[in-house]
């Protein structure tokens, strides 16, 4: 434990800014994965345990497209669209069979998918650590904000994720499709009786979740090393995020993700060995005090 490092950092604005931005990028990546998890759970009532695998696929796709075209914009697009397409195939072939099934089956099918997708990535891209490298557009001197060093890519990542959060929040709140999704979360049978193709809606929602996870992977590719097991650790953290924020709530996912990101960034200073323990502690506290999560409404 190193509380001095933590207090030193909290009293210096440069360290504060640096740690906070790194906390925010962790949080933003987590948010993009967690929001898919929470939307899919909210409507289909399954926890897509293989969601982390889509993040991993997104990162690897981004790396491949970037190496082929040298364009980061295309790489992001490729990661999001490619992951989305893979998600549609998986939803149609496997996920559809476990909606409404028992938890044991859901866990097993997702467990199998994780094993298969991890191995496929290992076959296609090799088992070793890979790095994509910073795109040239962002290879510029870092910004100095209140004495803290902030790489411009971090700002881009945070802005991109916040933009997605805003668009998503507005779409769910204002558009017709958003209303349909909210209704389906409440009572899918009734929505289907009203003449809406819920099978298609489920596929679309699953694809949206995969697209966001793929985008998160694409955004993470320049700043994270890529390994075939990278999806699992982010899945566990995203799950903690959704538990803290409340399953099914987008706002909850955002708040929970930023909270976990900050805990990770500052916890790494004060409690380097127990950063992870802090996250679980935070989750346990929320579960004891408010089992539905900070923004969860009904009993989950």
């Amino acid at each position, binding site marked *: 434990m190193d509380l001095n490092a933590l207090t030193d950092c909290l009293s210096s604005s440069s360290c504060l800014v640096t740690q906070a931005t790194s906390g925010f990028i962790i949080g933003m990546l987590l948010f993009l994965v967690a929001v898919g998890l929470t939307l899919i759970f909210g409507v289909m009532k399954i926890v897509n345990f293989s969601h982390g695998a889509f993040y991993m696929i997104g990162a690897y796709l981004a790396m491949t497209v970037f190496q082929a075209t040298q364009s980061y914009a295309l790489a992001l697009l490729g990661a999001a669209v490619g992951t989305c397409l893979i998600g549609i195939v998986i939803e149609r072939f496997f996920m559809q069979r476990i909606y409404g099934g028992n938890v044991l*089956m859901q866990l*097993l099918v997702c467990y199998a998918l994780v094993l298969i997708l991890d191995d496929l990535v*290992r076959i296609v891209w090799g088992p070793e650590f890979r790095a994509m490298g910073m795109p040239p557009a962002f290879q510029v001197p870092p910004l100095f904000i209140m004495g803290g060093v902030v790489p411009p890519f971090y700002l881009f990542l945070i802005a991109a994720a916040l933009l997605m959060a805003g668009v998503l929040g507005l779409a769910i709140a204002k558009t017709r499709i958003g209303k349909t999704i909210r209704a389906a979360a409440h009572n899918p049978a009734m929505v289907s009786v009203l003449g809406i193709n819920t099978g298609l809606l489920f596929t679309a929602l699953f694809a949206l979740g995969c697209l966001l996870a793929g985008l998160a992977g694409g955004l993470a590719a320049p700043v994270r090393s890529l390994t075939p097991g990278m999806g699992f650790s982010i899945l566990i953290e995203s799950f903690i995020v959704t*538990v803290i924020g409340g399953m099914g709530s987008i706002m909850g996912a955002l708040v929970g993700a930023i909270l976990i990101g900050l805990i990770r960034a500052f916890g790494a200073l004060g409690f380097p060995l127990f950063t992870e323990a802090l996250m679980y502690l935070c*989750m346990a506290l929320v579960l004891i005090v408010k089992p539905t999560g900070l923004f969860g409404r009904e009993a989950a």
Partner: protein
Amino acid sequence: MTRPALRDAALALAGFLVLAILPLITSSSALIDFVIRCAALGLFATSLNLLVGYGGMVSFGHGLFFGMGAYSFGILMQRTGMPIPLAVLLTLCISALVALVVGAICVRLKEIYFAFVTLAFQMLVHSMIIAWVPVTGGDQGLRGGIPRPAFLGINLSDQKQLYLFSAALLVLGLLAMRHIVSSPFGYALRMVRDNATRAGFLGINVYRTRLTAFVLAGAFASLGGVIMSLFVSGAYPEFAFWTMSGEAVFIVMLGGTANFLGPLVGTGILLLLNDFVTRTAEHHGLVLGSVILLFALGLRKGLLDFVMEWLAARRTRDAATPAPVAVKGTST
């Protein structure tokens, strides 16, 4: 003792005798290793079935207790050199205590939350094992071997005696769990699984019943961990990794939840499958994942359940009545 209890005890004795005679017939060390691994994983999976099959609580963090058993036992033996039976007992107590704390938080939660929060606790323990290098050896695992002082004339450094010891623990553990599920507590647990509200109205303390099951399952899982740590003479972080829990859930599903011995059958199948796949295929996860998908989406129930229902259907067909549709995934 009641008659079913006597029958179980007789069966257990017979099972142990068969296992004890086995090495006299064949001297294959592969078979001996296989049975020891079966004992470790079989106890682990059967303890998970206490929760999944009898309690309706799908834990996805059960590997925590397997790892806890292996590490506690290994550390106790390395640091204190106490007699093995005492270390086993202490390990059981430690695991039960951990299960009490984790369970106190988790068992209130509904299905999928329960599954994932148990998983989160497992990952917490896993990260602590990795981080606490001076005690656990970090990601290298607990190395340097586990000392095995002889006790009561039993020397566990000898593979044959370790085999008998594991077989005895397996049989005793299974017998104890069998006794638990056929006790009034076992029936209360089934009732809580089927209808917690009604059980509550009838005066069963639902929370306490679930928590007791969780603690018992945790203790028996750690017994599996003890056997494993003796077998590999160490403890590795993988024992507490999530794939361990995934494997256990798969074993339970593979063998079937409706029969007490289902998980043991599942363990045998999975170990054979694992050995076969690692010997023949390069991409272990791909093959194993496909097999799991085939089972989960194709068969939709465990193998032993499938066979039992098929037998029951055949018997009733002889009586010219339509085959009964058994309730999926529940134990009777």
